[in-house]
């Protein structure tokens, strides 16, 4: 074996070992992810009416049970998120990312709510991605009649 070949093999070995050390042990699903942050959920308000809101966020596929729950804890006081909305959702093992969406109903019109999102498996085990506390404001009660 020439010196050049030996050098290439050595470099390849180092790269392989370093690479395997740098890859965090994650599920087969998560390994396919296309760059969405693993532990940070960045929710967006899909829509909000006077009493209803939809919040969504995308994470790498967390694996685990097929049935998952998207969870939003919310309240009028950012330091006291006393309500919880959980929406069942199903993960597709073949998909690299997972869109979580939560329906929050029975909100008060014209009110600002603070919320925090997370998700969990059907057996209650939490997924890694969570968010900080964000906020949204519901519409006034007359918004539907205003559309007529």
């Amino acid at each position, binding site marked *: 074996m020439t010196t050049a070949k030996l050098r290439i093999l050595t470099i390849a070995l180092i790269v392989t070992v370093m690479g395997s050390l740098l890859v965090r042990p994650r599920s087969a699903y998560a390994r*396919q992810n*296309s760059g969405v942050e693993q532990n940070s959920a960045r929710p967006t308000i899909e829509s909000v009416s006077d009493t209803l809101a*939809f919040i969504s966020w995308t994470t790498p596929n967390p694996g685990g049970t*097929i*049935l998952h729950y998207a969870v939003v804890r919310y309240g009028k006081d950012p330091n006291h998120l006393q309500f919880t909305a959980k*929406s069942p959702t199903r*993960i597709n093992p073949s998909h690299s990312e997972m869109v*979580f969406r939560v329906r929050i109903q029975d909100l008060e019109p014209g009110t600002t709510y603070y919320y925090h999102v997370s998700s969990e498996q059907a057996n*209650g085990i939490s997924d890694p991605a969570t968010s900080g506390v964000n906020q949204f404001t519901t519409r006034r009660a007359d918004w539907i009649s205003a559309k007529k």
Partner: protein
Amino acid sequence: MKCSEGFSLLSLAGMTTLAMLMVVPGASAQGTPQPAPPLNFQLPAGYQIPPADQQCILSGQRLNLQCIIANDPDAKRIRAEEAMLEAQALAAAKSGKLDPYHQVQTLGELEIFDPKLAVNNNKACSFCHDPAAGYGNGISILSVFTGGTNPGSVPITVHGAYPNNRIGKRNPQSYTYATYFPPLHYNQSQADFYGGNFWDGRATGYKLQNAAANQAEGPPLDPDEMANPDPACVVWKLSRSNYKFFFEQIYGVGSLEITWPSDVQTICTTPIGAAVLNGNPTPLQLSPTDRTLAGKDFDEFAYAIAAYEGSDSVSPFTSKFDYYLAGKATLTTQELNGYDLFRGKGSCNTCHLDGRSSTLLGGSDTGQAASVQPLFTDTTYNNLGIPKNVKLPFYSEDTPDQWGFNSNPLGFGFTDEGMGLFLDGFDGVPPNLSWGVLLPQFEGKFQTSTARNSAMVPYPGFVKAHMHNGYLTSLKEVVHFYNTRDVYPYPVLSGNCPQGTVEKVTCWPMPEDSNNENTTIGKLGLSDEEENDIVAFLQTLVDGYKP
């Protein structure tokens, strides 16, 4: 371990058990009695009421069900079909040429197309499960006016009653591929229910270890369907059928030789739920030996039906997609686009398992079929947030009929909680007492139907009802609902969408039961063209394709 610790642990275990047992029927929230609201709906685009049915339309967009049964062209077509198939099956049974495998299936066929098995000798299973409609509702006008719910065997003759026939609360579920569903079980590692039959999973199959057979025992005894008052009455009818010889050929000579009481005719022509029966589930007075034999016969009757449902006549895996998997058919560009969306952007195959890999968000399709006979369902249960279908005549079935039976005392106040009703004991205590505590997680959920044959219709222009209450009446509506449920949500009942919106297009009324509403769907971001592509793909799942 100290005694006190042992006591505490035992107490805890005991309390847990007690808590599980204390989840008793009636625990979930049902509404208070309410009258059904007036109807106000548009007929589906292009739909025209058949001339023969014009006379059956009552004021307020309601149907004279007796009139429909007698005159509707689909009802006539179905009766003609079932008579033909019954005759064919009987000829095959008499031929002596069937092997044991086909004997059982043929017996099931004879049973399924036999209208005499209903209490009034007037409704076969196939009346509600039309082969030409994918073994679902085959009467187009019912899809339009009643959510696909079918009138059962018992007319209601109380003067002025609406509806004028007992009628169920749900759109008849197709039973194609139902025999491939395992008995209902709670998968501990997935923390989820799988299997079972019926929209709500109550045909668990726990005793027969065959969910489809368990399902087959339901409609013959359902007050709103075939309405027999006693399982032994079905056996009595079998013993008088022209295929009795065939049943005994399969299940043993003397199987149907039961000493019937002198009042068998009177009891077996009295529909279940009649006040005179005093709620007795077995009013026929039989000897213990004969009661045991009748129970065995009833189970065998059901097994034969399940065998037919699993036969090549019902579940043949002969769709264009099946031949595509076998390399014997080519999908069109639109069908392929639809397929990619089905397993990609639409996330349809998350529940309607297609047995293949996915293409969402940069993933790649290996092209390898994990299963060459995918069921297009994972047999789980989900609440899709389907709006209450105000068209259901069941909501008006709130007063006693001439037999003293009141199918729905709550009227419009009834909420169909799907599996929640089953777990809550609506149809009797669930066989597994540990399931009761799961009620909060499964209220509002219905079984994921197979997408196979969802596009099968008897003829072009036929309106097919989809979902448990038939609220959606085309596959385009189904896909559009999945795509935009949460884009156009309005806190209104069907028929009350705000001005400027169009129901089912830019307005989705609130869900009948918002508990556990699934958010895998609701905002898929599909274009109109992409919705159409998925519909095109669904049409490749219709059996009977000729490659």
